[in-house]
C-alpha cells in the first residue's frame, strides 16, 4: 500500500528577513493525513517561521509550501481553506463570549450555517465547562482559552492543523486533555504540525519528531525509531553542538 499524499509539504523552504537574519534554511518536510509531526527546537530555531510560511503570513525567500496540494504562495486563500491554526496564546476577543468567538471564527472558516447547539457540542468535546459557553472570554484561564482555540480548529474541520507551542504554559491536566484531543483529531485523519518545546509530549504524541536548529531541520525520527532512543538526550546533544556553518 502506498503512503497517502502529504497534506502539508515544505519544499526547500527558506526565509531570510529584511535585517539579514536567516530564519529558515532549505526546510523539507511532509505531514500526511492521520500523522502528527512535532517540531522541536530552541527559541529562534525557525519553528514559528515555518508555521508563518504555511499560513502565508510572510513570503518565503525561496522554496514553496503546499497545503493539500495547493501552493500557498500562488493561491493563499485557497490553501487556507484546508488549514486550521492554534497559537501559543490563543487570541480571542475578550468582550465576546466563548460562543460569539466560536461563531465569528467559524464563519471566517466558511461554516456559516451552524446552530447554537453545534457550538455547544464542540465546546463540550474539548471539555470546556458548560457555564463558560456564554461567558466573556476576557476572564478565561489559559487552559480555557486553549480549549476554545481547539474548538475553533475543530469547527473549521480542515484536513490540516498547525499548532504553535500549544501546550506552553498549560498545567499538566490541561496539557494532558489537550493531547487527548490531538489524538482524536489524528485518528480522524487530520495532518497535524505542532511546534513545541515539550520534548516529553512530543515523544508521546508525535508520529515523527524533527529537531530544528538555526533554521535547519537537523534531525528527524519516527515514533518507531524513538522507541529505542532517548529523545531528551538527542535534543540536548543537538542544542549543545557547535553552531552550524552557514
Amino acid at each position: 500500500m502506498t503512503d497517502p499524499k502529504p497534506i502539508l509539504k515544505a519544499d526547500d523552504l527558506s526565509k531570510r528577513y529584511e535585517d539579514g537574519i536567516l530564519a529558515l534554511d532549505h526546510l523539507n518536510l511532509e505531514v500526511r493525513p492521520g500523522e502528527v509531526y512535532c517540531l522541536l527546537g530552541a527559541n529562534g530555531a525557525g519553528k514559528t517561521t515555518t508555521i508563518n510560511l504555511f499560513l502565508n503570513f510572510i513570503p518565503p525567500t525561496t522554496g514553496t509550501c503546499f497545503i493539500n496540494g495547493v501552493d500557498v504562495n500562488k493561491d493563499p486563500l485557497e490553501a487556507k481553506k484546508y488549514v486550521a491554526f492554534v497559537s501559543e496564546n490563543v487570541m480571542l476577543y475578550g468582550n465576546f463570549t466563548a460562543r460569539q468567538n466560536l461563531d465569528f471564527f467559524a464563519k471566517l472558516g466558511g461554516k456559516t450555517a451552524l446552530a447554537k447547539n453545534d457550538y455547544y457540542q464542540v465546546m463540550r468535546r474539548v471539555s470546556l465547562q458548560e457555564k463558560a459557553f456564554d461567558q466573556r472570554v476576557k476572564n478565561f484561564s489559559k487552559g480555557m482559552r486553549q480549549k476554545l482555540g481547539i474548538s475553533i480548529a475543530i469547527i473549521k474541520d480542515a484536513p490540516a492543523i498547525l499548532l504553535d507551542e500549544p501546550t506552553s504554559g498549560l498545567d499538566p491536566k490541561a496539557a494532558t486533555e489537550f493531547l487527548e484531543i490531538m489524538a482524536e483529531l489524528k485518528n480522524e485523519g487530520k495532518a497535524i504540525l505542532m511546534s513545541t518545546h515539550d520534548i516529553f509530549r512530543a515523544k508521546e504524541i508525535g508520529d515523527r519528531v524533527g529537531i530544528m536548529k538555526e533554521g535547519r531541520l537537523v534531525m528527524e525520527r519516527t515514533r518507531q525509531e524513538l522507541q529505542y532512543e532517548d529523545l531528551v538526550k538527542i535534543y540536548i546533544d543537538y542544542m549543545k553542538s557547535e553552531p552550524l556553518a552557514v
Partner: protein
Amino acid sequence: MWKTIVKKELLENILSYRFPLFGLIAMLLIPLGMYVNQLDYAKRVRDYDEQVRLSTEAASSLSIQEVMAGTVAIKGFRRPALLSVYTRGFEGTLPRYYEFTQEGTKPGESSSSEESILSVQGKFDFVFLVQMVLSLVALLFASDVISGEKEAGTLRAMLSNRLPRDAILTGKVAGGYLALWAPFAAAFLTGLLFLILGGIPVFGGDTPAKILIVFFAASVFLLAYFVLGTMVSASSSKTRTALVAILLVWAFFQLIMPKLGDMLAAIVHPIRTETQVSLEKSLLAGSLGMETAKELGRQYDLIFGSAPKGAADDEASPERKQWDGVKAGIEQGAKERKAQQLGTIDETYRQQKRRQQELAINLSLVSPSAAFARLVADVCGTGELERTKYAEAVQAHARTLDGALFSKVKRTLMIHAGGGTSLGFSAEPVDFKTLPQFTIAPTSLADVFKANWKSLLSLLFWLVAPFAAAYMRFIKYDVR
C-alpha cells in the same frame, strides 16, 4: 465574509466601554448645542424684527429737508441666517445692518459686541462639536482598528482563514465607523427634534435639503478622520504608539493647518489694511471735492463777475443759463472722475484681497477640518458666500438709493478766488414710502456647490488618500 467582519467590528465596539461613553457625550452635547443656539437665534430674530419695524417707521416719516441736512441714514438690515443654529460662521462678525447716506455706506454694529467673553474660545455649535470633539473621538475609535488586532494577535487568527486582507480592512473600517456614526446620527436627529420643538421652521424651502447636506458633510468629515486614524493604526504595531501619533495628527489638522493658511497668505501676498484704503479714499474724495469747489468758484466768478446784479438769481438771464450748463458739466465730470478714481482704488484693493484670500483658503483647505467648516458655513448661510452676497447687496442697494433718493438732493460747494466759500442746495421731491427695501439675494445650493468645489475635493482627498495609504500598509504587512 465581509459582513461577518463588519458585524464583529460593530459588536466589539458596542460591547466596549467607549461606545456608551461616546453615545452619552454625543447625545448630551449635540442636542444641547442645538438648544442653546436655537434660543440665541430666536432672540436675534426678535431683535431683527423690532429693528426693521422701527427703521421702516422712521423712514416713512422722513422729509427731503432732513436729507438735505445730511442727517438721514437709511438702514438696511440683514436677517439672521436660519441655519446659524448649526454654525455661527461669520454670523457674529457681520454687521447687523448698514447705514446708507449721501456720503456712502457705513457698517452698523455686529452681534459679536453682545457675545460672552467665553466666545473667544469658539462658539459652542454643531460644527465646533464635530470639528473639535467628534473628530478626536473618530480618531480614537480608529486608533486600535488595526494595531489593536496586531497587538492582541487576533489578526493572526483572522488571517489564518480564507479571508482577503482588503476585506478585513474595509470590513473593519465600515463596522468601526458604523459604531461611531450610529450614536452621532441619533444625536443629530435629537438635536433636529429640539429645533422643531423650539419652533425653528426647518421644513420650509430648501432648508430640509440643506440640513441633510450638513448631516452628510459631517458624516463624511468624521469618516475622513476615521480613515486617517485607520492609516495611523495600520502603520503602528502598538495602539499606544498609534494614540500618540493620532493626537499629533489631530493637533496638526485641527489647530495648526487651518490657521497657517491666513498667516502664509499674508506673508506671500501682503496687502494694505482696510483702514489704510478707506483713509486713502477719504483723502482722494476730499481733494477732488476741493478741486471741484475751486473750479466751480472760478467759473462762477468768471460768469457772474461782470454780470448785472441779480443775474445769478434770475433763471432767465443768459449768465444764469450759462452757469447752469457749466455747473452741470463740472459736477458731472467731478462725479465721474471721483467714481473712476475711487473705483480704481476699490478694485485694486479687492483684487489684492481676493488673491490673498484665495491663497489663504487654498492653503487652509489642505485641512479636512477647514474644508468641512467652509462648506457647512456656506450651506448654512453664515460663510464666505453670505459675506460676499451681503457686500454685493449693500453695493447694489447703495446704487439704488443713490438713484431713488440721494441724487435728488444736490449740494454745491464753491471756493472763490478771494478765498470765500458758498454752499447751494437743490432738491427734487421723493416719496419715502416707496423707497426700495434692502434685500440680500438668497443663496441656492447650486451657488454653494459652485463656491465649494475645492472643499468637496479636499474632503474626497482625505477620504481616499489615507485609505489608500492604510491599504498599502496593511496589504504589505508581514504578520510575525
